[in-house]
């Protein structure tokens, strides 16, 4: 094996370690935030975990598309997660309707107030489109400002406000 080949392998290995290190850092930096969003967008812990995993796997595969700065990374991951959620909902809409009726049964010892509120909110949020749901969750539950959401999701603040207005109207109707 000649010297250029050795150098090439060494560079490839260095690049691999560098990318692996970046992925590990990416995971450590954003998994909590991403899981919270996924949990609020999905119906269960397992589904949220799968969404988080898939989002990071996308990041691992499309490393070049991932922005370099932390805010850009988070925005990229959030957009990916929301798109994944959107695709999943669209694909499994029929199955979800049946599953919701089974999973949302109250516990045998009587429903607790917190449980009732959570189920009501999950049901209400599930009536919204994934992107609108994400905007509502980010703004109303996580308290993020409209400008930040618009920048992260790559839309205009007007669009965010419009989604919020429509979502509040729909949620007010569903939540009573």
């Amino acid at each position, binding site marked *: 094996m000649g010297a250029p080949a050795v150098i090439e392998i060494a560079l490839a290995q260095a690049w*691999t370690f560098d*990318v*692996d290190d970046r*992925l*590990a850092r990416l*995971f*450590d930096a954003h*998994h*909590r935030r991403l*899981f*919270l969003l996924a*949990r*609020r967008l999905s*119906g269960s*812990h397992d589904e*949220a*975990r799968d969404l*988080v*995993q898939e989002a*990071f*796997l996308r*990041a*691992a*595969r499309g*490393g070049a598309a991932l922005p370099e700065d932390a805010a850009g990374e988070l925005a990229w991951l959030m957009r990916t997660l929301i798109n994944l959620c959107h695709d999943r909902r669209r694909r499994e809409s029929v199955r979800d309707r049946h599953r919701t009726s089974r999973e949302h049964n109250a516990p045998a010892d009587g429903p607790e107030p*917190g449980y009732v*509120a*959570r*189920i*009501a*909110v*999950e049901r209400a*949020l599930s009536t919204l489109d994934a992107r609108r749901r994400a905007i*509502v969750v980010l703004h*109303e*539950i996580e308290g993020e400002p409209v400008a930040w959401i618009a920048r992260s999701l790559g839309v205009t603040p007007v669009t965010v406000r419009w989604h919020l207005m429509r979502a*509040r109207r729909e*949620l*007010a109707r569903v*939540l009573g």
Partner: protein
Amino acid sequence: MSLQKRITDDRVREALRQGDPARYDRELTPTEREYLRATIPSSRIVDSIVRRSWAWLPLGACALVVLLVLAATHDFRIGDEPALTPVVTVSLPTALPDAPVSRQVHLTTKNGTRIIWILNPAVSF
């Protein structure tokens, strides 16, 4: 914004925060976290291997096509094909004296294919 609308928005916000789906489920378990952290880099390696193997597919397909064409056109029989060895048989004249004499040439190949030429007696050169 009207007061009524503001109250409604506040109520929706309050209801959402009270029933936050992530209220008691705020993060991944340590096992899940370790598993995901370990899985993500390895998936990239697997993905690159798969991608690399897919890159060989067109080349493999081309090679297969070339082989098929060669197999279709090449004669794989060993040795020379035996030359056609005709067995010429000339039929005897028929018994009827007035009937025109028809002649036949029989050719038989080694594989058993028979070719019979019936010569028209009316034709004369």
